């Protein structure tokens, strides 16, 4: 069990950071994972090209919720340029998990949503 659900993952899952909604977000983005019905919305408040506030709402498994929570922590105070540099690799390192192709999609949905919001491209490719 331990490898898949490290203590830190469970913490993020049970006590997510940045959960909620921004009333008038500068950027908001939403997507779903058709394979399991996971949903993810990320709202951003931007000031001077930098993340001022971030909130998310996600339905899904522990992995996808924890990943989203961790991702929002990773980008607090970051500039949009820095965010654009965050990829699969960075997020997965942070998660510290070995995931099969299906659960990988759970973990990466939040990144897909973030990227498509930041780049303003509706269907960000997985």
């Amino acid at each position, binding site marked *: *069990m331990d490898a898949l659900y490290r203590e830190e993952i469970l913490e993020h899952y049970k006590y997510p950071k940045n959960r909620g909604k921004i009333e008038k977000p500068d950027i908001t983005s939403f997507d779903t994972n058709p394979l399991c*019905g996971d949903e993810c919305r990320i709202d951003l408040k931007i000031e001077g090209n930098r993340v001022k506030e971030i909130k998310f709402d996600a*339905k*899904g*498994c*522990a*992995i996808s919720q924890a990943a989203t929570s961790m991702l929002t922590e990773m980008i607090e105070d970051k500039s949009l340029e820095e965010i654009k540099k965050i990829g699969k690799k960075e997020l997965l390192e942070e998660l510290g998990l070995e995931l099969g192709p299906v659960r990988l999609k*759970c973990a990466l949905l939040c990144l897909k949503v973030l990227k498509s919001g930041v780049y303003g491209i509706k269907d960000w490719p997985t």
Partner: protein
Amino acid sequence: MPLPVETIRQDFPILSRKINGYPLVYLDNAASSQKPKHVIMAMTAFYQASYANIHRGVYTIAEEATELYESAREHIKNFVNARASQEIIFTRGTTESINLVARSWGDKNIQAGDVILLTEMEHHSNIVPWQLLAERKKARLKYIPFDEKGRLNLENLDRLLEGCKITAFTLASNTFGTKNPAKEIIRKARAKGTLVLLDAAQAVPHQNVDVVDLDCDFLAFSSHKMLGPTGIGILYGKKELLEKMDPFLGGGEMIKTVQWDHSTWNDLPWKFEAGTQSIAEAVGLKAAVDYLHHLGLKKIAEHEQSLVRYAMERLHEVEGLTMIGPPASERVGLVSFYFKDIHPHDVAAVLDRNGICVRAGHHCTMPLHKKLGLEATVRASFYLYNAKEEIDLLIDALKEAARFFRK
């Protein structure tokens, strides 16, 4: 005599695999079944001794291959009790079979305003092709509703059948497990002149299905769910209907003559089999049918019934777990459930750590889940090689999962 499960398990090489040190407990049979060595060996032997393209070769191995392929069709014909082998068309699977009917029959016969009647518990493969057809033809889709126990509510069936050219529904639900009252629906459809397509993906592998007795017009199912290989499926259709339908795919083998500007079509069933077919897969499917036939579908159904009954009893023990669908006696061998506070993916992941394979997700029935207000469920589905002890392992692991996420 009950099904000799221990002996049967010896026939399935994958069942001796270990996952994280635990024996594999395969409970995802509604998604796809495992294959007995008979099926694997039949294909291997075929590739090693008789492989060739079919129908066109006049040399020995081509004739052997043709004979094997066509005898697979005979086997299927007998298995579902069709009147003639021309009524058995090989496709890639249930999905292609349904698409074939929606295109070939649908494009010719459905007009603006016509009703196409489905049920609320259909698999996406028995929804999307009809949505696409309805869009092409401006037809109307209607759905027979299900009740809180996952049973079809047939109260308004006569009204739903008004103006309905075809009704397509599943013999057994892949999410609730419900065995639907096909005969009753078919009788009423007949009375209105409505055609009937049965999605038999979850039925043919598990119980006797007799197309003459059912009196359906079309029946679709997949090899990979009935011990056979991937890459092949079946469409049964009444000859009179198939004859009047236009071809689905164009290409080699489905033609009689080709000229620059037009072509004429081959006889049934080949009119619907364009291009090189899934030849080795037909050989494997034939072995699967032999295997099932030898054990007897009736015994298999009884075994699965006893498993699902036992599973449902024991699932009641697991705290916070809710099952969906009807009582065991009205089901094929599968059960879907959820925890209010644990995501199905997490449940499945914990089970996987213990070597147990179950499905977590919407099982390709999103509208059904939406109606229940659920995103996803966990499904355990049984087949002839599953044993009671495996259900005990499932229950233990579910209890562990509940403890783990609630700690």
